[in-house]
């Protein structure tokens, strides 16, 4: 029985994406596992791409964590631990890293995971990832020595080799079979085969509606207990289904009646409704939460002027932004660190402005000193993202209060990210301000976090330029120890709060809600693991 079912699953996988047309016939042949062995989860959004290297969408990283495995993973204390790697060594000159894979690793089609697969996977990932690019910039070669051993040889020491391989922020360094790993990094992979604790069930999946993952019966977990994303990935249910439920009100109702088990981004305002429900538990899995990001267009007036950007530090009243979107102060905090609060890199260098803010008089003085010419400031407002939608409205009012004209450019998120990419001035389709958010874990890494680059037009949206910051980021990347990195981080922040490449709008944690009989959730930033979770 077990074997035949597995074969069915494999044949579905083997046919890959094209199987969808003929899929229902296969789907019917399988019997669905019982309700108490199935978890139905509503995640933050629809799973639109299945390639976690190609897109940075978090939900695709969730998908990746289900079906793929990693060389290293962070534990509950954010320390990297070996996952697929058995042992690893680094030479005395810190230039040669040798990795040996552990026994029992196999792709879902039954073939063995080899060092060659891993080398190709690292290469493809590093082409799309900031941390990976920093690694490759210092790498001479990555080669497989034998089936289980591969070597990364560096030109100059890089203190973060293990950290970037282990980080859970997107794109995550997932290991893929050679065929997929050799895909052009700018193209999506077509395979859905990994070596992770779950197998993607193509037959039962309906894109845009539900995504089905079955327990991988042949997965060999590590012996250590699960901690963060590290340790043994023991799957305690038969099936996990991501239900794409677009309407929050309906998702809440479904959670209340037990039609779903897990609701990832339950709006904070719903919490009073589930507080007294013994069947529903609310907990915080991502302890460092998210940080609201205020992007300013450094290429054009007014934010090409230092004073105008500094004015924003004094103008922003973080409490207003946080309160408006997250209501209950239990779930948010103001934060003045350039690296998020509660992170390794958090510090208080050069935060004098924060004690004063909000200081509208000061903000107005600075803004006017920048030579503001009275042109309306264009704020991009995505109507279908609550936090950014509210943030744009509030920013609009705060700017109006200090005598700056405002033009709220409202569209859906698709429209915002299209316009955000325009480097031209406002009268040629550009913009002045946009907002977004990143995880606290991500902003604590000035090399991995794309928003921290300040190399002008090659930097992220807003295109800030600052040579000192670039030099310090490089210094941070090569710093050998955590303590050294903390020292550099202070310098980065000291400089950043002077030149203000971007600003922050406060920090919050987003609780998840789940049925009380579903237990064992692991606390990690950026990813929601479904191993270790059991249902009674």
């Amino acid at each position, binding site marked *: 029985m077990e074997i035949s079912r597995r074969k069915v699953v494999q044949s579905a996988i083997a046919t890959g994406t094209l199987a969808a047309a003929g899929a229902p016939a296969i789907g019917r042949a399988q019997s669905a596992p019982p309700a108490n062995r199935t978890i139905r989860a509503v995640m933050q959004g*629809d799973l639109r791409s299945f390639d976690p290297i190609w*897109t940075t969408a978090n939900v695709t990283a969730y998908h990746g964590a289900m079906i793929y495995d990693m060389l290293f993973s962070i534990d509950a204390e954010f320390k990297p631990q070996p996952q697929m790697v058995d042992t690893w060594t680094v030479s005395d000159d810190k230039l040669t890293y040798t990795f040996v894979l552990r026994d029992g690793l196999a792709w879902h089609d039954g073939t063995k995971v080899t060092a060659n697969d891993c080398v190709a996977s690292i290469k493809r990932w590093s082409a799309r990832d900031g941390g990976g690019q920093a690694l490759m910039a210092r790498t001479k070669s990555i080669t497989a020595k034998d089936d289980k051993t591969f070597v990364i040889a560096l030109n100059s020491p890089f203190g973060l080799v293990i950290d970037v391989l282990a980080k859970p922020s997107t794109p995550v360094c997932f290991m893929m079979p050679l065929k997929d790993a050799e895909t052009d990094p*700018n193209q999506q992979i077509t395979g859905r085969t990994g070596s992770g604790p779950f197998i993607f069930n193509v037959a039962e999946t309906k894109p*845009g*509606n*539900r995504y089905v993952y079955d327990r991988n019966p042949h997965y060999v977990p590590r012996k250590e207990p699960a901690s963060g994303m590290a340790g043994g990935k023991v799957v305690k249910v038969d099936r996990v289904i991501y239900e794409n439920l677009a309407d929050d009100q309906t998702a809440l109702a479904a959670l209340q*009646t037990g039609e779903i088990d897990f609701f990832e981004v339950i709006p904070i305002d719903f919490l009073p409704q589930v507080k007294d429900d013994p069947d529903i538990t609310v907990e915080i899995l991502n302890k460092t939460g998210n940080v609201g990001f205020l992007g300013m267009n450094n290429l054009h007036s007014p934010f090409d002027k230092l004073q105008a950007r500094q004015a924003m530090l004094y103008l922003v009243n973080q409490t207003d932004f946080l309160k408006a979107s997250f209501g209950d102060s239990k779930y948010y905090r103001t934060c003045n660190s350039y690296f998020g609060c509660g992170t390794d890199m958090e510090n208080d260098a050069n935060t004098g402005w924060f004690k004063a803010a909000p200081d509208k008089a000061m903000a107005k003085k600075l803004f006017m000193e920048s030579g503001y010419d009275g042109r309306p400031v264009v704020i991009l407002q995505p109507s279908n993202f609550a936090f950014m939608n509210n943030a744009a409205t509030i920013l609009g009012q705060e700017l109006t209060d200090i005598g700056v004209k405002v033009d709220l450019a409202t569209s859906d*998120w698709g*429209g915002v*990210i299209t316009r955000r990419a325009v480097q031209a001035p406002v009268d040629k389709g550009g913009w002045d301000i946009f907002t977004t958010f990143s995880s606290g874990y991500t902003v604590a890494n000035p090399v991995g976090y794309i928003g921290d680059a300040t190399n002008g037009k090659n930097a992220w949206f807003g295109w800030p330029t600052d040579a000192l910051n670039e030099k310090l980021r490089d210094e941070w990347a090569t710093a050998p120890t955590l303590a050294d990195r903390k020292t550099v981080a202070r310098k980065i922040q000291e400089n950043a709060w002077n030149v203000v490449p971007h600003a922050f709008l406060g920090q919050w944690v987003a609780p998840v809600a789940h049925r009380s009989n579903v237990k064992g959730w692991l606390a990690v930033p950026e990813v929601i693991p479904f191993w270790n979770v059991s249902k009674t």
Partner: protein
Amino acid sequence: MIGFIVRRLLATVPVMVVIGLFVFLLLHLAPGDPAAIIAGDNATPDSILAIRHQLGLDQSILVQFLRWSGRVLQGDLGISIFSQTPVITLIGQRIGPTVSLTLTTAVFSVSIAICIGVLAGWQAGGVLDRIVMAFAALGFSVPVFVVGYGLIYLFAIYLRWLPVQGYVSLERGLWPWFQHLILPSLALGLAYVALIARITRTAMLDVLSEDYIRTATAKGVAATPMLLHHALRNAAVPIVTVIGLGVALLIGGVVITETVFNIPGIGRLVVDAINQRDYPIVQGIILVFSGVYVLINLAVDISYLVLDPRIRS
């Protein structure tokens, strides 16, 4: 009659061309770059350019249009930019729930509407009639999603009689399938019920005022069955007209109803696709919806011939 049908069929060709051209231009002349959306939040301008090239979005609109229409004529609606799945396949996966929802809604609303419409017409001016007319007026005046939330709260959360959301395919059993469609059909059908009930009532009134009915009633012929027969016969043509016109209304409602009740139908598919600028899906679905509309109205025109001999001449 055959000639009429052929002429009507031929007339649909230019209509479909207009639709195709319109849909294509609408999407391609509007701002919004699927490449930027695909590339994701942390993408660099370079990777966006690479993706745009790969999708052929850097070619002239004319080239893109010719390629697209050439493929459509061969029955190929293209491949979804995001899921890399043929649009036809996606539509095939989603058509079941939408057809189920539309059919149950149509059956629900027509049967409920005719019942209350007949009652109202029969009792014209009475309390029952007033209630029905008030209900009909209200049915037009409340947004679909408000009705939907109201029904969920009452029947799914408070009474726990019916599921909140979701769709179960027919092959998993008749009752589970039907159970999941009751609330969405009621929410979607309300405006429809209101519309058809009014038409039935008017038809009923017309029949009641006809001389032969008065005569029949005066002669003491058993009134009710005859009344019903004539009233419904008279109401048939306007009802069928409304069904034809109402397809567009229904499809609009489907988009919202599917979102409220999490039904994985075509409405959800197209809304998601618009948000992602997944052009092939949007074009394909609008074409399919429009085609269905055209066909249903063709069927409606033909049914006039059957229902009302006077039109035949």
